[in-house]
């Protein structure tokens, strides 16, 4: 692709619509980044009052075209519409039960690490972790000193996608079309090779362990979003192999 190639051409958009579509693309990238950011926050640590308050201020679409997304929003809405005696404690307890558990048999929680779900013995720090670490480094991302969990934690993988979507929006705005397309390719490969590979199993396990509509809804939303992401990135790069 030459340096003068407009990204919207590569992204399979008619020339007459390129200018408007360019703005729409930036908006799409920012929406994607927001969603990745929200999901990363939900799965990173227990919910706090600020998160709950922010989510109570959200609008929950009812017909997005993906049944898991719709169900996820509905469950989140149901939970957030209900007054629990101590929502923060309720969610902290459910986070602990769902994602940490108290067993040592590798089957006592919905472990939020890709390695656990893609290695034969359900162990941490396996091949998946090495792979995502290499991808982060290839994209000039390094580990924050405060992060003490493995790099293939779902929150980190989602945060990686958040960063990449923001970079894509910035590149489009700055007219760096090749860079934007390359970043979209990276994102498509990451969704295909990683998120779409283990999120369905992870979400299935969330449904086994979670007792609140909050984390069950977040799980459904995550599953649906990863599905939609696969389709969106394929559509955007439709002219690519």
């Amino acid at each position, binding site marked *: 692709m030459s340096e003068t190639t407009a990204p919207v051409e590569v992204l399979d958009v008619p020339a007459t619509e390129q200018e408007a579509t360019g703005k729409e693309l930036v908006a799409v990238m920012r929406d994607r980044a927001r969603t990745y950011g929200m999901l990363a926050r939900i799965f990173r640590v227990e919910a706090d009052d600020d998160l709950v308050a922010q989510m109570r201020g*959200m*609008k929950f679409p009812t017909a997005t075209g993906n049944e898991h997304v719709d169900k996820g929003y509905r469950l989140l809405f149901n939970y957030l519409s209900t*007054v629990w005696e101590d929502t923060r404690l309720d969610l902290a307890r459910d986070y602990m039960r769902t994602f940490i558990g108290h067993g040592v048999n590798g089957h006592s929680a919905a472990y939020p690490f890709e390695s656990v779900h893609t290695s034969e013995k359900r162990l941490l720090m396996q091949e998946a972790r090495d792979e995502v670490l290499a991808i982060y480094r290839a994209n000039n991302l390094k580990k924050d000193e*405060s992060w003490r969990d493995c790099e293939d934690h779902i*929150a980190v993988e989602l945060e990686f996608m*958040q960063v990449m979507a923001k970079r894509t929006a910035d590149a489009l705005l700055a007219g760096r079309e090749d860079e934007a397309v390359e970043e979209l390719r990276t994102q498509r490969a990451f969704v295909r090779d990683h998120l779409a590979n283990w999120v369905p*199993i992870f979400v299935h396990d969330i449904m086994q362990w979670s007792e609140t509509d909050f984390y069950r809804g977040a799980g459904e939303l995550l599953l649906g979003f990863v599905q939609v992401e696969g389709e969106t990135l394929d559509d955007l790069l439709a002219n690519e192999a």
Partner: protein
Amino acid sequence: MAHETYGEAAQAADRYGAVQDDLELFEDDEFDPFAADVDQPDDEAEDDQITDLPMMSELPESHRVRGRYDKANYASAQDALRELLRGNPARRQVLVAIIDACNDPHTTSEVAQVVEGVQRDNLSVYTPLSLCRMLETAGALTAQVPESSEEEVDEDGDGYLEVKEPREATWTATDAGLEVVSELREGNEVRELVGSASESPYRDIYLRLLDFCAEQGRSAKEVGALIDDDPLVQNPRRYGAHFIDGMEATGALVWRDKGWHTTELGRRFLAAERDEAAVAVVAE
């Protein structure tokens, strides 16, 4: 080369500000990550889902971890509830009161009022919601979370839901829960305890204890003075606390207003035992 970081703000408190920065990304009230997707997703992606890897649901039951009093661990919800009450004698009164109250549906805050009244003299680290959840897990209560279907439509014609005024869950007693409460009212547990092989030698002690606490509230010290020197409790050695525990666990004694009181159930048991004794004397 400059590097960005990932995994920000995970554990360290001083990184908390960075989390908030991230959250600003979805502060927008109009947040709708999929609204910009103009194409409806096709169904092919659904077929791509992995379905042939081992799932947790395929694990043997022995790998599952459930709450101790989860009804799934017992033959029936009644058994789970009986064990819950047996295992938590100090919370028995309030648990029974919640089930009893929820014969008519009660919201969480209404249950909280019931709990506050019952636990006025017997405070607990358990919140009303925790107690309800325990009963729900055992199968004695069900929770109805209000379904909201007040869907609105934005300027683009897309439907959405928005949290207006959060509403409370409503708790309702199950038939199993009410059945056990009804059993408890009959006093079978007191009779079984006092009539058991290990406790029947102390029948008179139990009756004296109930009689003593029926007059007015009694402290543990006063109960000790009544019982501890009795020849019956010297060998094997028993103390007043042993008998208080037994009567509390079966609902015949309750701690209230800084003293142990005989409950209505305990009074009925006492009266029945006296009637029986009188009949025996007449028969002799």
